[in-house]
């Protein structure tokens, strides 16, 4: 792999940057692969990378209908944390957090992993109770978390308003110091580059239009670039998970909703950390480039249009101003939407299905970005070994039948 480092940058700078190679090969599909991953988002790329790196499966392809990273990977607010309530969630999200920490180096691609800290606000006693329960569960699960009283919240994040007569006063917050944000596109590109280097074919602008099966087992996929034979298919398509699953008649408990986000004009640093509030339904951080990155809850209806309604944004702005009065005069520079795949228990699905060779990774809903490396890691293992590892086991489809849900509504928070 062509190394990325300062020295090289200087050398290239002196010679006109002519030596840089494509970050990943623009592959055309071969007639068959040992496994095919549908979806070139963060999770799909991570799955491919770990399949190649850990399980030595390099005769594989990632099939992406558009450009890699153009789905939710390219439109999420990049909040990273692992302070989930249940053991199963703590395990996967914390595993992801551990991987995030070393990822820039591992991929030799700076993903700008910023551990600026994530505050989850409590505005009433009920929330405080839930959050404290979560902090304690986190501690016992080895997840970094602490409780801050309102005064400490203010000290940690000075721009926040902790007025006592606010409609929803801030009465405290959980803080995960090693939570934060990162550069979403870089993650996809970094994984792609590393996977491609190991021989993984990344095939863009190739839509999967059908799945071929024989005797209840997959044999290949139909794509806009032709048929590709493969015994193993992983659908890692986030908002489109149901669309893919419907191709093989696999029923899923997933619904696709619009989730919007927006950015302000770029500003000099004002927000030291990530702040999320469930009660007033808003969250905000500041990107390295300077925009305030702001999100809210999903639009209530199903939609695949990647756009939502303005009233969600209007409410979100009112809430944001209540929480951060300094923002009132700032301006919204761009708003956009993604399609999030929501599961009834706000936890993901990493599972084999009744169709042999068809695996599903989805249902991450509003909060799967933070899990990207952990999800890819577990999914690769499932694909390679055809059985869920300890981390993936609680997230199989079986739980919707037995009722053994991983109900993370509280921890999944507004949007993650």
């Amino acid at each position, binding site marked *: 792999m062509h190394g990325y480092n300062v020295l090289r940058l200087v050398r290239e700078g002196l010679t006109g940057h002519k030596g840089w190679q494509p970050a990943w090969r623009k592959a055309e599909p071969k007639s068959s692969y040992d496994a095919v991953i549908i979806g070139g988002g963060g999770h799909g790329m991570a799955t491919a990378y770990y399949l190649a790196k850990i399980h030595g499966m390099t005769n594989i392809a990632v099939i992406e209908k558009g450009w890699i990273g153009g789905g939710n990977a390219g439109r999420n607010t990049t909040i990273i944390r692992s302070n989930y309530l249940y053991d199963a969630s703590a395990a996967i999200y914390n595993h992801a957090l551990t991987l995030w920490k070393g990822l820039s180096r591992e991929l030799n691609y700076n993903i700008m992993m910023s551990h600026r800290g994530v505050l989850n606000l409590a505005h009433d006693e009920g929330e405080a109770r839930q959050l404290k329960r979560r902090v304690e569960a986190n501690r016992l699960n080895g997840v970094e978390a602490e409780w801050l009283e309102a005064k400490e919240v203010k000290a940690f994040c000075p721009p926040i308003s902790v007025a006592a007569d606010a409609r929803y006063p801030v009465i405290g917050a959980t803080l995960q110091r090693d939570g934060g944000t990162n550069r979403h596109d870089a993650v996809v590109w970094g994984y792609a580059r590393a996977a491609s280097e190991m021989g993984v074919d990344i095939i863009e602008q190739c839509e*999967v239009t059908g799945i071929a099966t024989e005797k209840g087992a997959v044999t290949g996929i139909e794509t806009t670039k032709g048929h590709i034979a493969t015994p193993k298919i992983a659908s890692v398509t986030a908002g489109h998970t149901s669309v893919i699953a419907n191709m093989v008649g696999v029923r899923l408990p997933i619904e696709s909703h619009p989730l919007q986000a927006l950015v302000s004009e770029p500003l000099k640093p004002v927000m030291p950390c990530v702040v999320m509030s469930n009660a007033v339904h808003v969250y905000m951080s500041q990107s390295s480039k300077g925009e305030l990155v702001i999100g809210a809850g999903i639009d209530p209806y*199903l939609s695949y*249009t990647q756009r939502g309604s303005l009233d969600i944004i209007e409410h979100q702005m009112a809430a944001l101003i209540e929480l951060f009065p300094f923002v009132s005069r700032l301006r919204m520079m761009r708003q956009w939407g993604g399609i999030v795949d929501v599961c009834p228990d706000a936890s993901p699905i990493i599972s084999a299905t009744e169709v042999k060779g068809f695996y599903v990774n989805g249902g991450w809903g509003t909060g799967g970005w933070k899990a990207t490396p952990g999800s890819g890691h577990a999914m690769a293992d499932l694909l390679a070994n055809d059985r869920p590892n300890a981390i993936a086991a609680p997230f199989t489809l079986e739980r919707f039948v037995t009722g053994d849900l991983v109900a993370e509504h509280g921890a999944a928070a507004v949007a993650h």
Partner: protein
Amino acid sequence: MFVITCPYCGERDLSEFAYGGEAHIARPEWREDMSDAEWAEFLFMRTNPKGILAERWMHAAGCRRFFNMLRNTATDDILAVYRIGETPPKVEARLPATPSGEAPIGSGNDAVKIIQPGEGA
């Protein structure tokens, strides 16, 4: 923000309505021998189509009636509204040409951006 035609009150703004999820999922009568899987199908499993979806809405701020609506989730085109108990009307929709319906030059809505060669203007 949609304009939804409440079958009772007429055209109103989306903000007056509450979403009720996929329609025509009948609650199975209690049976001793109903399997967990059968019950899970009712409780959780959804078609979630990209295309025509029959869904329920309630006119929450208005007449408080539930009703059904056909909407193309690929475009958000509202195709029909009808009352609870009525069968869905036949409708035409601008359905996606491929399962995702999205042009290869982009993802999501990018498909709608530019007229491609061969596409009628």
